[in-house]
């Protein structure tokens, strides 16, 4: 059981380091999915928004970390 718990903990840790980065990425994907599936947003536009959104989230995450380090 210990090994299974260890693997599970590692699995979660694989995807979540900065919690807000993971959360924002999931929110972005959810919003784009809703827009494509329910609001007829063209899927390619959705894909491009996903690319731009991921970069914006990454920028915000590293900027926050760097600012926190220099305080």
């Amino acid at each position, binding site marked *: 059981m210990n090994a299974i718990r*260890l693997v599970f903990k*590692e699995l979660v840790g*694989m995807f979540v380091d900065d919690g807000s980065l993971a959360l924002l990425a*999931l929110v972005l994907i959810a919003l784009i999915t809703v827009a494509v599936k329910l609001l007829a947003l063209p899927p390619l536009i*959705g894909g491009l928004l*996903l690319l731009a959104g991921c970069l914006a989230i990454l920028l915000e995450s590293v900027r926050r970390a760097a600012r926190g380090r220099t305080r």
Partner: protein
Amino acid sequence: MHGLTPILSTVTASFLASFVEVVEAFTIVLAVGLTRSWRPALTGAALALAVLAALVLAFGPLLALVPITVLQFVVGVLLILFGMRWLRKAILRSVGVIALHDEEQAFSKETAALQQQANDRRADYLAAVASFKAVLLEGVEVVFIVIAVGAAHGQTLYASLGALAAFVLVMIIGLVVHRPLARVPENSLKFVVGLMLTSFGVFWTGEGLGAEWPGADLALLAIFAIIAAASFAIVRWLRGAYPATAEGIAR
């Protein structure tokens, strides 16, 4: 999707990512082998590989039951989370916000822990557990990477070959040098892998949503180039905006 671009990118991503993980596991197994003995080191590693094989055999066939667009979407989302985590860490390490991973330090830490346990009557067992944990934890990441970069387009074989090549190469280098592989440019590798996995993630999530990327598979290279250019721009900007961090722990 069976052109040269996806095959090369799948093999490269799998190879580089696995290389980083195998180097980290190798450091711990080496510490156990040199500090205690090779028996617990290899027993722990072999047991962990058996657990990983069991996981692959148990969950691998289930993937065939998932519709391809759902699989692409789910794998794409997981790759975005996984890849951006690596990319974030690599960016922060390259500007000195967090320390670089040091294999020599990891080796010394593990060796010190094992030496403290040397007089324990369960010392061999504890040494085997240390080896087991290291191989299992790093191996889980390798398994995920192989499945993630391979499964969404039926290229698990190519991804597995990339991971196997990384394993063999680390073992060969390790046998020759017989010490932690501290000279491996781990952060640069993680940077590239983070870029590749995030690119795969965006590409497949887009495909899962129904996007027909211009240029088909070649769009993967364009996405990679955009993310790479943006990431390097972020590094430059951070070095300029927060110079104190760049002079900090590591470059």
